[in-house]
């Protein structure tokens, strides 16, 4: 298993697409900080009662949301690039224990996505706080120590999406098909669910992957397309399920399928 993880790590860091995806993620985080500068200027020009409606949190969460998509794309490419070139056969010849191969891939992409996810979410939070300085935005009055856990939880959504991408890639073997599925789960499906009649939009909206971090952290879902019906523990279980159930299915299929 150690050999397999080391080999997959070498694979991931020896192709350019990895650096492109991570660069896009980093650039977008920088863009979030620039938008925060702009919001600080807006704040300065507003009257006191309009300031009470100006929220910073949606902007702070944008980075993690985009990082989820970027790392899901990386998860997809990590396996579909092997199917596209046929290198999967070389991989399976080197590591004929297919569960070990998939676990090694999951461990590597999961770890990279967790680090990237935390860097983006925590970076967005601390960075935007630094940018607004002492301006008392209505949703930024709590201390950094108080709000930080929520962002740490949001960072864990990124590896879930990366693993989801990896599993979809194994199941579909096609880059295009997997990317479309990832984007569908990431944003199209939640938008469709939001249009459902009540109470279904609330109920199903509560189990969408993008809305789980808020429920785990015990935050509400105002101004959001997601629901907030789940207690924190259940939401955490659902989030873990999004990572592990597709991965288990992918392992089941991978072991049985001719390569």
């Amino acid at each position, binding site marked *: 298993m150690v050999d397999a993880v080391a080999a997959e790590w070498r694979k991931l860091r*020896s192709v350019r697409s990895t650096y492109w995806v991570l660069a896009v993620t980093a650039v977008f985080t920088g863009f979030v900080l620039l938008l925060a500068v702009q919001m600080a200027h807006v704040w300065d020009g507003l009257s006191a009662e309009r300031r009470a409606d100006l929220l910073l949190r949606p902007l702070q969460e944008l980075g993690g949301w985009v990082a989820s998509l970027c790392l899901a794309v990386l998860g997809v490419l990590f396996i579909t690039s*092997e199917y596209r070139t046929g290198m999967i056969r070389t991989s399976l*010849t*080197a590591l004929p224990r297919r569960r070990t191969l998939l676990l090694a891939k999951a461990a590597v992409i999961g770890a990279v996505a967790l680090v990237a996810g935390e860097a983006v979410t925590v970076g967005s939070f601390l960075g935007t706080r630094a940018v607004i300085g002492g301006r008392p935005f209505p949703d930024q009055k709590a201390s950094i120590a108080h709000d930080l856990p929520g962002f740490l939880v949001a960072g864990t959504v990124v590896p879930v999406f990366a693993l989801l991408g990896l599993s979809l890639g194994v199941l579909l073997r096609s880059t295009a098909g997997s990317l479309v599925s990832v984007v569908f789960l990431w944003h199209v499906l939640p938008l469709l669910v939001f249009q459902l009649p009540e109470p279904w939009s609330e109920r199903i909206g509560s189990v969408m992957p993008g809305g789980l971090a808020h429920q785990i952290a015990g935050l509400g879902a105002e101004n959001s397309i997601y629901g907030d019906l789940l207690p924190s523990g259940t939401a955490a279980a659902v989030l873990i399920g999004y990572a592990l159930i597709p991965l288990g299915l992918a392992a089941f299929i991978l072991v049985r399928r001719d390569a």
Partner: protein
Amino acid sequence: MIEVRELTKRYGGTTAVDHLSFVVRPGTVTGFLGPNGAGKSTTMRVLLGLDKATSGAALVNGDRYTALRRPMREVGALLDAGAVQGGRRAFDHLGWLARSNGIGARRVTEVLEQVGLAGVARKRVGGFSLGMRQRLGIAAALLGDPGVLMFDEPVNGLDPDGVRWIRELMRALAADGRTVLISSHLMSEMELTADRLVIIGRGRLIADTSVRELADRFRRGVLVRSPRPAELTAALTAAGGAVEPMPDGAVTVTGLDVAAIGDMAAARGIPLYEVTSHSASLEEAYMELTADSTEFGAPLERQAS
């Protein structure tokens, strides 16, 4: 050692390999021949654990491939030289492979030198020619210094230098006592490289033989030309040969070798203008053996004879 026992592989309703059995022993280069679609690649994929056998067994050193803990140290394989990710450097490609089987980084440098790619180790594989990719694939197969080697169509698309290099490498690997299996659909190539031949068609075994045995089996007698054919025919028939007259006055003799024919003619004072041992080329032998099993062959008009 490679053992294939009663191997059958079906894909849906198509039978790719049908009760195939053969053994590949160490110290020889064994050519695995058959027309396109005969089941060579399928057999190799099953041997490497990529596809599952429908029934029967495909064993390497007595074990199923998937049971090997560090398979590259026992079996080296090249299935498709094009199956590499173009964005990765040659050095990194071999690097992850080595790492996956606990092989040291020094070995990567060694095999790159052995296949002549040391100068492009830091170049991306995407820019490699087919010949260079073929060499990279062979480097990967040699990485674990395995005792068993399998190559699927290794000379496809290579220039004459590359073909000769592969041929010499295969012979050297076998001379080390390794088991070497090379698939090909070209008999002319195997004739120069292989000691033994496993010939299959439509997934079934057609011949499991040495190159020499196959040549002997398709020996077509001795062509003899003489100004006194009737006298010659009588003498040869009396000596136990079968004589068949040819349209141009020559005769084809089977059952007697060139020396026996010459001695007899000399003893009787019959002049000979030509004595040629006439054997079918291996290529012809192969075509004849596989004539009924080419899957996508154009219909040939049978010559009236």
